[in-house]
């Protein structure tokens, strides 16, 4: 959708609960993408999505540890999950390069989300927390960029299938 509003959390606990929910949603979406690609026998990309899911799970666990929670409270407002990968870009013949591009896009959106949130938080401790989350996302972006440099960009025609589901006419 072209626009959606982000409601600023009112307390630090709400902010972190929101961040936790976003990370968990990313875990689920990466897991689903891994399942989809495994179903379509693209095991290499499935494994990469599983790795990305486990990374997001680590970030979620880190939020629990920081807050001293055994279980995160339900956030009062669930925004669209900017850290979650968009499923619409998946393709059964996709390469790791595509998966990393999807992940990079999601991390960039998450970075922008927390940056916008930091600007809207009036309390110092909340602004600092949002800035820390923003910095975490920046680190993820850097990491993904380094991974991207290590995988070759697929050649033109990567999605050509000798027995496609849809024949050109």
């Amino acid at each position, binding site marked *: *959708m*072209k*626009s*959606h509003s982000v409601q600023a959390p009112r307390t630090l606990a709400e902010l972190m609960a929101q961040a936790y929910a976003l990370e968990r949603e990313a875990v*689920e979406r990466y897991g*689903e*993408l891994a*399942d*989809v*690609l495994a*179903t*379509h026998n693209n095991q290499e990309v499935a494994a990469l999505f599983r790795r990305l899911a486990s990374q997001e799970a680590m970030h979620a666990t880190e939020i629990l540890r920081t807050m001293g929670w055994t279980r995160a409270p*339900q956030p009062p407002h*669930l*925004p*669209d*999950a900017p850290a979650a990968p*968009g*499923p*619409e*870009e*998946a*393709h*059964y013949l*996709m390469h790791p390069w595509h998966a990393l591009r999807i992940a990079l896009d999601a991390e960039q959106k998450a970075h922008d989300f927390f940056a916008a949130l930091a600007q809207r938080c009036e309390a110092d401790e909340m602004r600092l927390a949002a800035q820390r989350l923003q910095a975490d996302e920046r680190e993820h972006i850097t990491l993904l960029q380094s991974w991207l440099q290590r995988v070759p960009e697929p050649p033109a025609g990567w999605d050509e299938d000798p027995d496609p*589901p*849809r*024949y*050109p*006419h």
Partner: protein
Amino acid sequence: MNDMCHPPGLAAAEPFTPLHYKSATKPIWCPGCGDYTVLNAVTKALALVQRPPHEVAVVSGIGCSSRIPAYTSCYGFHGVHGRSLAAATGLKVARPDLTVLVASGDGDGYSIGGNHFLHACRRNVDLTYIVMDNHVYGMTKGQASPTTEPDWDSKLSPGGTGVRSFHPLVIALAAGANFVARAFAGDQNTTADIIAAGIRHPGFSFIEILSPCVTFRPEQKEWKNLTHPAPVGPTDDAARAAKRIMTDDGFNIGVLYAGHRAPYSGGPGAPTRSLQEMESAFAL
């Protein structure tokens, strides 16, 4: 029920989460299909309304979208092509205590099941009808459906069908649906909110979900840039809603009409006999 009556390890006071409504069966659709996010939106919506999975039934017809019941932990019925609403109506009338969701696609719902669609709107039984509209028959490899644009050029309809597209929202409104909304599969949380609103609203709730078919209609990926929140909130004035729906760009997202018709309750001539009494009449 697929695999869960009560989620293991969930204490009575703990809220249901979307995961509680998912089955162990992994969905099989094309990678990138909008139906994945519709499934997630359905499970999120059920978590929002907090109905236990065993008090929910998901009924479907035939097609890609109709695979959904198997992917939920609710009771499910994967029915006959175009007849999901007939089965769901019978279920809801017999078991009004259940929350009944009906899942369909534009071919199943508007072509094969078109007549059932009209009369389900008219009867106003308390159902939530979700139609995943991708403007094509995906499962059977790309034939034009009732909502396909007349000039969509494909191998199976060279130059397009030349046939005017079906307008499901305004038809639902004219036929008497009590709740009419449009959602977009690419916006999972808004879709979940709309489905939850449809479940909560009494009577027949019709939710058209634009769900891209990345295999046969890859150009629909552009929908994420075309969809936008409806500029105004829902109205309870059917004439006003009809005018808005007829003149919008087809990409307004949100609840567009929420009426006040009382849901079907059996009518004045409804049988008053118990199920046991009726069954005894068939005893040999």
